Each structure stands twice: as C-alpha cells, then as structure tokens.
C-alpha cells in the first residue's frame, strides 16, 4: 500500500502551476497511482478555479485599472475575430505507451514523462541512471534503476531529493517503500536505501549529494552521478 504522499503545501503549488516540471511530473505520477491524492488534487483544482474567476479575488491583481481596460478594449475584439477565424480543432491523440529497458527488463514509462527526452544511460555497480533532459539548471531529474541487492551509499542532501517508486521496492532505516510511494527528503535526512528485489525510481534532486561515510567521500562523484 502507498504510505508516502506529497504534503498539502506541495499539492497546492502543483495545482497552481508553480512547481518546476520535474516536481510537477513527480506529483502527477504519484497521483496516477494514488486515488486519495488524485481526489485532493481535483477538489483543490475546482476550488482554485472557482476562486480565480471570481471578481473579488481578481481585484488583487489590478495594478493600474485604467490602462488595463484600455488595452483590453483595443485588443479583445481583434483577438476574438482572430481566434474564431480558425476552423481547426485539436484532436485528442490516443496515448502512446512508451517503454524503457534496464538490464533486459522492460518498464512502461509513466504517461507524464512520455514526451520528455531521456539521456543516455550510465552504469555504476548495480545502479543504472538515465537523465531526463528537462533543462532545469541545478534541478536534475532521472530514471534510476537498482538491480536486486543494489543500494545507494549513505548520504545526506544539501537540497531536496524526491524519489517516486515506479516499480519494485526498497528500504532504508525508516522502513519499506513500495510502488507509488512519494518520498521527499531534505537536508536533515540521512539514509542508505537498499533494494532487495530491484526497483525503478523517478528521482528529482536539486543538489549533489553529500556522502557521510568516510570511504564514500572518495566516491563523491557518485553523488552527481546518481541524482
């Protein structure tokens, strides 16, 4: 059963469209597997939408009422004519399922990620990572595959690290995580996840990891490798 969900604050930003694409995708993937969050999201969207188109709420945005009205008066009729001139309609294309293979195993890519480009995959030990090329500067998103018995050396985070389990399971000091779990960690966390039977994760992190065990310091490049 899914035990880890995004915090309400995060869902709110998601609904408002304020999160970067990587985190938005993480929440959408989780919501696809989690009926509870899906319902929270649709109820919140309804409320936010209702609010947005109410007059009272809108007064907040008025910067310079008069100039706005002038602009509007000129542009709007033009715009309407422009728009209705087109007889195009957008046809909803059937969703095309995409798959990705890691170590000879095929996984279906969540629909949310289907138009995102994947970089080449790189391997180290039992880990395989494909970067998701979202171009979000210090925020890096990846598909991370862990072979059975593989794990990530103990580390903390300077920024945040999001893991959404797409398939399989892993565990760390605080317990077991399963498919659909949404695990958001920040700098105060320190963990050493291990996957007994292998798993595939969607990960988002905004900083290189900071390894805490002595020997792993030598392996520090692994941090930027994994996340």
């Amino acid at each position, binding site marked *: 059963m899914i035990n880890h969900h995004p915090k309400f604050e995060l869902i709110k930003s998601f609904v408002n469209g304020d999160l970067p694409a990587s985190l938005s995708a993480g929440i959408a993937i989780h919501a696809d597997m989690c009926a509870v969050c899906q319902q929270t999201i649709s109820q919140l969207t309804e409320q936010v939408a209702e609010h947005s188109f109410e007059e009272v709420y809108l007064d907040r945005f008025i910067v310079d009422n008069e100039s706005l009205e002038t602009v*509007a008066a000129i542009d709007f009729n033009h715009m309407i004519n422009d728009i209705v001139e087109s007889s195009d309609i957008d046809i909803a294309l059937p969703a095309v399922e995409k798959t990705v293979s890691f170590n000879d195993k095929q996984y279906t890519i969540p629909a949310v990620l289907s138009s995102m480009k994947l970089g080449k995959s790189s391997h180290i030990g039992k880990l395989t990572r494909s970067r998701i090329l979202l171009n979000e500067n210090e925020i890096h998103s990846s598909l991370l595959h862990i072979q059975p018995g593989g794990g990530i050396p103990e580390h903390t985070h300077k920024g945040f690290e999001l893991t959404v389990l797409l398939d399989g399971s892993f565990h760390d000091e605080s317990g077991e995580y399963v498919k659909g779990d949404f695990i958001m960690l920040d700098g105060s966390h320190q963990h050493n996840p291990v996957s007994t039977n292998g798993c595939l994760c969607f990960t988002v992190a905004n900083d290189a990891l900071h390894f805490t065990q002595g020997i792993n310091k030598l392996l520090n490049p692994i941090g930027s490798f994994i996340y």
Partner: protein
Amino acid sequence: MQTNLLSKETSAKSTNMSDKINHPQLCQWLDAIAQSRDKQAFTHLFNFFAPKILRIARGKFPNEAQANEVVQDTMSNVWRKAHLFNKDKGAATTWVYTVMRNVTFDMLRKIQGNKEDNLSDDIWPVAESMSCESKGFDDHLADKKLLSVIEALPQAQQDVIKGFYLREMSQEQLAIHLNLPLGTVKSRLRLALGKLKVQLGEKHD
C-alpha cells in the same frame, strides 16, 4: 486516467463561494462551441473569461505582451478544444482554469529555460477521455483465447499502426465530412450502435 471524483460537498461549497458565476450558462456556451462552432457563444465566453485571465496573467508576467499572449493562447485553446470538455467531469471554470494554467506553465518554461516542449498537457491532461478512446490499444492480447500461442504486439509495431495505417476516420473527421456538429455525429453513432444491439437480441431470441 483521472477520475476527478468531485464530491457533492465540494461543488456545493464552491457554489456558495460565488453565486455570481453562472455555471450552467458557461457549460452551455462551451457546448455550443463544441457542437456547432458557435461564434456568438465564444464571444460570450471570451467576455467572461478574457479580462479575468488577463488580470491573473498580469500578476505572473510583468511584460504586457506576454500577459496578452496568455489570454490569446488560452482562449484560442478553448475554441479549438471545447469538444474535449466533459461537463460530467467538472465545472467549466475548472476546465478553463486547467487550460489557462497549462498555457502559463509552458510559457514560463519557455521564458525561463528557453524550452518549447509544452509538457503541461501531459502533467495536467485537458482531455479526460483520451485514455478511454484509446483503450482498444492497451494490453492487446490480455484475455485472448489464443494468448498462449501468440504474444502481445511489440510496442513499435503498435505505434506504427496507430500512427499511420489505422485507416480509420476520427469522429472529428467524420463530423467535418458529414458537415454536422460533432455532438450530432456522436449521438448518431450511439443510436446506430443501440439499434444494432436490439437487432442482435432479436436474433438470439
């Protein structure tokens, strides 16, 4: 994909929040656009939403031209996608909000990262029915009698068929061809299928 189980409670609450918004009217306009490309209905809808969208956009984009672009793109998507709106799945305001938020999201991404990848419709689908209409393609041989001997189609093969050679008209194409509103075509299809089932029943009796 999305169930959007809007509880009665929420709907009631939001209705209280603003009795100024005439939801049935908004739905009717959207429907008129979907059914008959009704320009008058679109003008009404535009007059209701556009000034509000402009004000919201001015809050997010200091640049006037960009805010105008949000209005233009949102309303133009409303015009082109009205048939994807399903009033059973939620309010018209929710749907237009989704369209507006998606346009804004893609534009911000374009400005900040210079990326024109338009990811928003994947994150927040505007058409709930997309997955339903394509359900015939999922999981091809799931419960086939011959499953034991023939395995599922390779993905690439399916894509090719879907993309190019499934020589089938879409409902939209049929509507254009028959010069009828999409809604009429849909109900004709439904009626025709209903009649068929009756005929089959008679034969079996």
